[in-house]
């Protein structure tokens, strides 16, 4: 199903980067800075956000989704400062899609009702809601289960509903926090195809701890550890960073462990 092209779609962009952070700091709890002085520029494409557990990936994604206020530094999304208020802030949020790591849903809703509810929360114009919902549900391959209640779905399907609700407003920035958790290998392949499709005209940020996801679907890798940017480049650059002396089963894994080596030594092997 195609969407009609509106004036907003062909208007010239007035920003160079969809996401631009300078010296970004985001606090978690009273003391800890989970994101500590991050400089990052992300444009259109699929960006894989890699990092060990506790690196601050979720906090960064939450800050990008504007549900956490930065403690310091600047964050610009689609050319707008992220800390704004009022109508400009709402207009910015309408162009962001977000799948949280813990994707909570209402068990009694059907797939269609849930995605419709999210479309309502995202202020999709009322007349566009049915078509937008159908398109989103078809894109994640759940058209035949659209009238089933959420509690009857498997874990992988619930995850796909999460992706459907994230793309229902045709976002310009799509933030997916661990979207491949719970998907089986075939679904994972299909999901990577969907990511590449979306990445053609959207800035997609995918946080993951699976290096193979990045190799298959991402145009760009952002390696993130202890709240700071360690590396940004193509998957090939990441592979080139590792040598045979580093741990890992694939060139990407060796590159990953090579770049994280110094931080691992500081904190012990775990």
């Amino acid at each position, binding site marked *: 199903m195609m969407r009609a092209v509106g004036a907003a779609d062909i208007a010239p962009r007035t920003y160079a980067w969809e996401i631009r952070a300078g010296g970004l700091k985001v606090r978690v709890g009273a003391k800890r800075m989970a994101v500590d002085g991050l400089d990052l520029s992300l444009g259109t494409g699929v960006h894989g956000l890699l990092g060990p557990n506790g690196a601050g990936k979720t906090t960064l994604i939450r800050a990008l989704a504007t549900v956490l206020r930065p403690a310091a530094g600047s964050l610009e999304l689609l050319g707008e400062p992220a800390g704004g208020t009022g109508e400009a802030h709402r207009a910015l949020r309408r162009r962001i899609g977000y799948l949280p790591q813990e994707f*909570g849903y209402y068990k009694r809703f059907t797939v269609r*009702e849930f995605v*419709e509810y999210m479309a309502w929360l995202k202020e999709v114009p009322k007349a566009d809601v049915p078509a937008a919902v159908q398109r989103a549900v078809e894109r994640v391959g759940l058209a035949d289960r659209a009238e089933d209640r959420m509690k009857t779905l498997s874990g992988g399907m619930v995850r796909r509903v999460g992706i459907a609700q994230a793309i229902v407003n045709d976002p310009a920035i799509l933030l997916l926090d661990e979207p491949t958790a719970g998907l089986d290998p075939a679904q994972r392949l299909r999901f990577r195809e969907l990511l590449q499709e979306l990445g053609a005209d959207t800035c997609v940020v995918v946080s993951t701890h699976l290096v193979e996801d990045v190799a298959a679907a991402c145009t760009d890798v952002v390696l993130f550890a202890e709240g700071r940017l360690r590396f940004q480049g193509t998957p090939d650059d990441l592979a080139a960073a590792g040598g045979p002396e580093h741990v890992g089963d694939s060139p990407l894994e060796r590159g990953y462990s090579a770049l994280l080596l110094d931080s691992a030594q500081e904190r012990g092997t775990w």
Partner: protein
Amino acid sequence: MSVEHASTRIVDAYARGGEELAADEVWALEAHLETCGACRERLSAAVTSEAPALASLVGTVWSELEPHLAATVPVPPRRRWSAALTAWLTPVMVPWLATAVSVTLIALLLEVTGVRPGLGNGPLVLLFAPLLPVCGVAASWSRGLDPAYELTASAPRAGLPLVLRRTAAVLGVVIPPLLVGSWATGVSAGQWLLPALAFTSAALALGTVVGVTRACAALAVVWAAVVLAPTLATGRTTFALQPDGMPVWGLLLALGAGVVAVRKDAYSLLGTHR
């Protein structure tokens, strides 16, 4: 505005395809067709007469496609009431609201039958009226109860309008049974309505600072200290709920509303869902 339409020669040549038309003519015609229904109609007639091979190909495709289209499940009509309801209440609030209404009805029943398990001789409805809406607000904006809290907080609609909507829904459900209760027991509505609204606004105001769930828990403690404990101790309606105490509640209501208005942006952040 008079519009110049495409000539029959150009339309026919376009329908036949091939090299007959220059590129600029094709371009101009296509630009015109996008905006002109009359010429599109002429083109479709021209395709049938000028390019029968193309017309029969389209016909074949349609005849093959039609059985598949018929088999596609049509989108069922939207359940209007559920869509309208979710704009005001989250599904997780429904069990809580049912509890609140039944608590009111049970208290009313006790009152009418004269069974008073050690709650003094003041009207029972006064005792819990301030707390019921506060619990509803907690249920509508709590991380523990609402699984979709993070999605809600990240949506453009999150913020003061959504909070007020949900609060209004809570009050709309809770206040009618309380009204019936107070009418049946002869308590004036103002005596509990003002404290109830004051507690609700205080919960929302405090919620912007420490999170709504914590704010509601704190207010429940305050309620126990200011209303419940004195009533149980003295066996009479406490001063706080006497008509003399009303200006204080009014002040609290105004203060709460003011704080909510000033700090309204906090409702679109994750911290308020604590």
